[in-house]
């Protein structure tokens, strides 16, 4: 995810007004363009745009994570209808592709990097055709992060405000409306080619700006060593006391990917839908028998940390966290993932925990 070494061959210079040209060119070619816009006062969200005028460039991050364009909050998987002869007609929802190409113009590097975790899950033991189709048709143009806030911690989990992981192009915006662009993939090269009137190879010697500082607050490897040994520990009860299991952290998380499948029907017809779900809710693990293997909030809080920092790395060699800080900002009781992780790290370092050994 780090972008310390940049090949000059991949750097391009965009003239002022490139954004309008880009949106007009893409729209003209029938491409759906998604970009950051202000949806509520002070709230920036990625949304489908008609013109470049509504695009907001000065923001820390968008409210809902990028994942929703690939793994929607709710989506139809299948429709069914009872026929007059008593049979039931079932039809799969037409897949997302190849309706049109999509360009996301202005995602943040952390949100884009999070897709690597989702890619692994949705291509794991089964290729999720809906996710893959959306992913395939989408080009991701990231805007380098210029003003991380105190809740950001991407550097602690291997990221960077200038990370290029999963991005097709990383754009460094300049105050005068110009931009420097770093091509990161074939899709990115195609995007640059489409804009050749306003985007030219950068002069020799051009360097991207240095990333803003985001302090690395913990070491995930140390944390994992403690998690490996402490499935049973009073720590989980202590950290979960104030957690209300409200789910806001999971729903806003760019890497959380759990879902529920439901049938919604009237007497005649209905739909099978896939909806976002959340391991903080008791119903998430409740069995048909009535037994619940995660019956208390302590076990659910533990699951959230274990999944991101132990189970996921063991299975996919990657932490399921990109340090965007949404969970910290959203928590209404001040539950702070960074505080929890730094506490765990202190225990791993032989701090005030007698159970760590």
């Amino acid at each position: 995810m780090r972008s310390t070494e940049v090949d000059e061959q991949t750097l391009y210079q965009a003239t002022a007004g490139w954004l309008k040209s880009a949106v007009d060119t893409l729209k003209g070619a029938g491409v759906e363009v998604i970009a950051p816009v202000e949806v509520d006062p002070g709230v920036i969200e990625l949304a489908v745009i008609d013109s470049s005028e509504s695009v907001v460039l000065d923001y820390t991050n968008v409210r809902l994570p990028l994942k929703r364009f690939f793994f929607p909050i709710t989506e139809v998987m299948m429709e069914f209808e009872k026929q007059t002869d008593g049979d039931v007609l079932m039809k799969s929802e037409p897949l997302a592709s190849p309706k049109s190409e999509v360009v996301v113009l202005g995602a943040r590097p952390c949100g884009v990097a999070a897709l690597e975790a989702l890619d692994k899950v949705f291509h794991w033991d089964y290729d999720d055709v809906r996710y893959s189709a959306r992913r395939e048709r989408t080009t991701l143009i990231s805007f380098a992060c210029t003003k991380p806030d105190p809740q950001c911690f991407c550097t602690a989990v291997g990221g960077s405000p200038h990370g290029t992981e999963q991005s097709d192009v990383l754009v460094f915006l300049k105050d005068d409306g110009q931009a420097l662009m770093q091509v990161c993939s074939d899709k990115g090269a195609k995007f640059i080619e489409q804009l050749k009137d306003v985007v030219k190879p950068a002069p020799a010697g051009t360097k991207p700006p240095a990333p803003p500082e985001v302090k690395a607050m913990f070491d995930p490897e140390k944390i994992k060593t403690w998690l490996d040994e402490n499935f049973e520990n009073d720590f989980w009860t202590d950290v979960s006391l104030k957690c209300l299991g409200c789910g806001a952290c999971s729903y806003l998380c760019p890497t959380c990917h759990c879902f529920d499948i439901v049938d919604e029907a009237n007497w005649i017809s209905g739909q099978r839908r896939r909806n976002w779900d959340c391991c903080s809710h008791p119903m998430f693990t409740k069995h048909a028998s009535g037994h619940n293997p995660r019956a208390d909030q302590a076990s659910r809080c533990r699951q959230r940390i274990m999944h991101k920092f132990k189970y996921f790395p063991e299975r996919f060699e990657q932490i399921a966290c990109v340090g965007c800080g949404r969970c910290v900002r959203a928590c209404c009781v001040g539950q702070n993932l960074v505080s929890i992780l730094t506490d765990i790290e202190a225990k791993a370092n032989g701090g005030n925990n007698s159970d760590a050994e």
Partner: protein
Amino acid sequence: MSTNSTVTESLQRAASELLSDVNIAVIIGYGRNGESPFSHPEFVRKPEDVERLVFDDRCFGNLAVYLSKDAIRRMGKIGIVVKGCDLRAVNVLLREHVVKREDIVLIGVPCTGQGDPLPHKCSVCEQRNPQGCDIVVGDPVEQPQINAEQKYSDAADIDAKSIEERWEFWSGQLSKCIRCYACRNVCPLCYCKRCIIDKTIPQWIETSAHLRGNVAWNVARAFHLTGRCVGCGECERACPMDIPLSAINQKMAQLMEEWFDFQSGLSSDEKAPFTTFSMDDSDTGIL
């Protein structure tokens, strides 16, 4: 942000005395985490830990929500820090027999409002000095007179819209709902062991985040809280999608006051309109 050091000191002293009394197992109050924009719920179980407790102008949370949590109740007798608005929620929990009065010690804190600028619920608060607590820390504060027009101004703004405009407004707002249920989980009065949304045989309310499901969920939430909601505003504060739920709560409170002369949570022995019958009841609907 300012910490009220006089109140904090009195609070810590009272908490220490209560914890030294073997009957009190835990004090639920507020604590500070340096960089946090608000003071978070804090659970203190030993007298030597009372210095973790603070009272400042960022004590947003309604701690009454913890009174129905099994993990807290198992500890034993609870001391709880309450502002006037929080006390109203405690009164409803007492009225509905969720907690027993003898199982809790109420530590009241006079409060002139939380946050800067003050949220609407604080600027129209009529309960700045909590009544009926076991202990009050801090001096009484001035209580301004509030009229109904001020109290229900958000609801009035929506009432001023035409039916079509109202639908446009609410369908726009409720379309944002992502069905995380933060509004439910943060609510001190949503204590059902199994919420109607979690009942699947049959599935009374669709869980999908489409407008139909979102409207059904939010209407069900409002129905279940009408005549009970105390207007603490925690649902709106917790909503990650910034849906103005307080406007719905205000409307519920306004109708209860107009039709039944009732404000929820002013005392623990009040007779709630939905659980009592009177020949004088209005026969109009409630919504």
